[in-house]
């Protein structure tokens, strides 16, 4: 049997992770330095060899040229075993009755997770699942995560201890994060698409608008927050009612405005590109059959440009979910609050409490919108059918 190139890489990563990297870290309390634990030491005697066996099997499947479905099954099995057993490791390492001790996943765990996620992603790509199937896989993965959390298997992991200590604020920040990301996206779509249409119709405007938005895009976020403090502060002080709806020099308002400004370029640019890509003949036919300008825009130009515009929306959404973390710097809330608090307290688990949900959200958003982009252009996709 012939070797698979990616399989070799995965085998090397997994081999290093098992042999040389710690699987979990044990700390007597939240702040002290940790003691790294190997995979076999971190797990009870039944679990360690089991996990090793699953990992070895998955590595072997990956190493040789095997059918994609088998590779997918093997990688999912390995991922599931890893995710379930890291909770077992926490139970195993934490002395009974000790509430100060902290157990967190260590580099070996993360490397293994990365290696098998890579194998899973590769197998999925080779299988070319249809968009609904991809969404289904995402939902199943979400359900698995929810199941693990709900059954309490991870309750003794440090990240969940951080969570339980601030469960209320976690959900408040989560909703702020999502509000910031989605709200600024919605605003960018409402403003950006008409602006894009205008740029498409008025040649002279196009270069000017796109240049300005390009420049905005290059301003570092911290600098943009700084630039926004003065005008927003002025508005709060001078426009009646502005302060009442939460407009201030710091806080959520400047974060929202900054994200909105960053979002405009992809939305406007993709709208312009999408409209420019509408076949001249389709536009000509639209006029020829007697559509008004508005009918042509909504019945011909938008539907044909939609996949490209949606690609812009996807870029913005993923970008905003990540960028919204920065809002915490100026008191705008969001998952960034935990990240920056964690950095301040050198508590890595608190950083993770902010970072992991952010990454998962961005990942889910990317998958859902990619599927939507593909579904929105049936008249292209059908060629192979």
């Amino acid at each position, binding site marked *: 049997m012939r070797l698979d190139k990616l399989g070799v890489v995965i085998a090397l990563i997994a081999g290093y992770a098992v042999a040389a990297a710690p699987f979990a870290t044990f700390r007597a309390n939240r702040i002290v330095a940790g003691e790294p634990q190997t995979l076999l030491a971190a797990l009870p005697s039944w679990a360690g060899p089991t996990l090793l066996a699953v990992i070895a099997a998955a590595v072997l499947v990956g190493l040789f040229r095997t059918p994609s479905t088998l590779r997918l099954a093997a990688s999912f099995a390995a991922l599931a075993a890893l995710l379930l057993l890291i909770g077992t490791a926490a139970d195993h390492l934490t002395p009974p009755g000790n509430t100060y001790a902290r157990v967190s996943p260590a580099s070996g765990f993360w490397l293994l997770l990365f290696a098998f996620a890579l194998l899973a992603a590769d197998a999925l790509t080779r299988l070319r699942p249809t968009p609904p199937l991809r969404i289904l896989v995402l939902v199943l993965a979400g359900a698995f995560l929810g199941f693990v959390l709900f059954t309490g298997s991870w309750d003794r992991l440090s990240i969940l201890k951080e969570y339980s200590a601030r469960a209320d604020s976690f959900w408040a920040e989560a909703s702020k994060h999502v509000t910031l990301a989605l709200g600024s996206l919605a605003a960018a779509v409402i403003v950006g698409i008409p602006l894009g249409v205008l740029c498409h119709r008025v040649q002279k405007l196009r270069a000017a608008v796109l240049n300005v938005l390009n420049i905005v895009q290059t301003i570092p976020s911290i600098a943009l927050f700084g630039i926004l403090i003065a005008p927003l502060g002025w508005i709060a002080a001078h426009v009646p009612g502005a302060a009442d709806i939460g407009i201030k020099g710091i806080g959520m308002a400047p974060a929202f405005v900054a994200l909105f400004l960053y979002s405009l370029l992809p939305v406007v640019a993709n709208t312009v590109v999408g409209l420019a890509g509408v*076949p001249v*003949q*389709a536009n*000509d*036919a*639209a*006029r*020829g*059959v*007697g*559509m*008004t300008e508005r*009918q042509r825009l909504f019945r*011909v130009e938008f*539907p*044909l440009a939609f996949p490209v515009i949606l690609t812009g929306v996807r870029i913005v959404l993923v970008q905003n979910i990540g960028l919204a973390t920065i809002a915490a710097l100026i008191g705008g809330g969001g998952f960034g609050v935990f990240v920056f608090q964690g950095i301040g307290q050198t508590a890595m688990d608190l950083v993770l409490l902010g970072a992991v949900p952010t990454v998962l959200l961005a990942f889910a958003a990317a998958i859902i919108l990619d599927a939507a982009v593909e579904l929105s252009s*049936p*008249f292209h996709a*059908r*060629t192979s059918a």
Partner: protein
Amino acid sequence: MIEIENITKRYGAATVVNDVSLVVQPRTITVIVGTSGSGKTTLMRMINRLVEPTAGVIRLDGEDNRTLPGYELRRRIGYAIQGHGLFPHRTVAQNIAVVPELLGWDKARTDARVSELLSLFQLDPETFGPRYPHELSGGQQQRIGVARALAAEPNVLLMDEPFGALDPVIRSKAQEDLLAIQKRFGTTIILVTHDMEEAIHLGHKIAVMDGGNLLQYATPAEILANPATDFVATLVGTGDRPFRFLSLSPAGDAVEPGTAEGEAIPASATQRDALAELLWSGRPALPVVNEAGKAIGRVTVDGLVKRASRPAA
């Protein structure tokens, strides 16, 4: 009736259509011929105001075409665009239904019309209705383009090189279909082509354009007999291949009932000789006699010209 009066179109300094006047009779086919860039498309698009003329007037049934808003005018005039111009994101049925929808027809009537048109073009509505344009052959796409133009039963149909992309066999089939449809609905058709053969075969009248000028506007027979300029003569020359067919068949095969004045021609003479005699003497018809010298009917310029362009018919 379509009256085009002193129509001019300039783009900057370039005059693309120069002071063209012509009248198209109702229920006839007028073919505009000319080389590439001679202004055929531009002239046609001024009729449904996709292009606004720089000067001149166009009247449809006596009414200035600027009376209605452009989009309403265009809903009443069928337009089969150069290259089919179907909407790629709409199915075949939806493409055909576009104008009825814009006019607010109810769904039942629209659906019935779509099926009727698909059947008319020998495309099974069940099979082809739900397809997307890219799932059709080039010839099928062009037929759908014409079907879409006909959907709202327009009195006037503008067709810009509708058979351009078709191979010769499908092309002559499509031409026959068009003639049948025109007879059936009595549509007034203006058709653009740069193929003189096609013009002679389809047109009741032919408008020859060159460099934005209308060189000659006449029946096919007149254009063949008396080309107005050398350019028209050259253009007609490009259409002379079919006339060779005339030299292969005897005049007896082209006999029509009726009588004619003047010297008779024997039934065994070629049709080409008969046509040459007609054109040379300037008469519209010649009597034909058999070997016994007995009159068996007559041949006409129009009849021979039609045979020339369609030898099999």
